[in-house]
């Protein structure tokens, strides 16, 4: 790397890295988005997070984004991301950071667990850039949702307009819950109310 690195640029990169670490980003994200050396990033990570970064491969599958709940979370994030992308001129990673913060706010406001990690969000944007995933308009509500490319747009219906049969039946705290409708048992209604 060049010796005459700008200190200001470096300061900005460290600032960015700290923000990303606070949001829970994996070390690979920091390595890819800054010019800071691995050793320094490792030290920075330990200093900010107070622990060693998790090891191992990043989640690499596009299929995760297709399952019901992750798809809704990913679509929310990506819509915010696209909004910021269109509305403001920012560096790519800053758009991810700001969109992710807005996504966290939205989920917190509804008492939902943020299923999408910042690493996955960053990955999602890369997948979309590479054409491995795209957004398709739902033929029912006209909202944009994350899909595989070449989804037949005319017939595409999103997971919110037409939830799959088992969707929203999980009882995990902070998970999306969907009501079965008129036929449900009183015990189930109580469980929902208690939640």
């Amino acid at each position: 790397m060049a010796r005459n690195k700008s200190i200001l640029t470096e300061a900005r990169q460290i600032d960015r890295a700290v923000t990303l670490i606070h949001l829970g980003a994996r070390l690979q994200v920091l390595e890819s988005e800054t010019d800071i050396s691995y050793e320094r990033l490792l030290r920075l990570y330990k200093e900010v997070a107070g622990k060693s970064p998790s090891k191992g491969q990043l989640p690499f599958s596009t299929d995760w984004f297709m399952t019901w709940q992750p798809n809704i979370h990913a679509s929310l994030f990506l819509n915010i991301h696209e909004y910021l992308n269109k509305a403001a001129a920012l560096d790519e990673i800053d758009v991810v950071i700001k969109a992710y913060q807005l996504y966290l706010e939205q989920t917190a406001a509804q008492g939902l667990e943020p299923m999408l990690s910042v690493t996955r969000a960053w990955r999602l944007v890369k997948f979309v850039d590479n054409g491995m995933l795209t957004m398709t308009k739902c033929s029912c509500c006209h909202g944009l949702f994350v899909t595989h490319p070449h989804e037949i747009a005319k017939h595409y219906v999103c997971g919110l307009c037409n939830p799959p049969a088992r969707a929203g039946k999980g009882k995990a705290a902070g998970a999306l819950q969907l009501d079965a409708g008129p036929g449900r048992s009183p015990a189930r209604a109580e469980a929902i109310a208690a939640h």
Partner: protein
Amino acid sequence: MTTEQMLAEIREANLSYLMLAQSLIRTDREQALYRLGISEETATMIGNLTPAQTMKVSQSSTLLCRFRMDDELVWSLLTSHGKSAANESIGRLHAAILLAGRHQEAA
């Protein structure tokens, strides 16, 4: 409500709107664009208002901000008549996705 009162309340709403918008824009400009649903140019205009100008602009007989949920689908998702609490949360999430997808007013 008398006309006097009504006008006073409109002025007050305008003033708080402008002040909120200004502090949002100054804290984080890009996120403010998303929250307010305004264009970059409008954000610059609002951000550059002096206190005296802010007062003057807010002294209007009409409201300065506009309703953003102007379609039936989003509206029904947000109000979700006769639905359970669980579905209401889904509805709000759905509405958030639809609203975030509308950047034509910002771009």
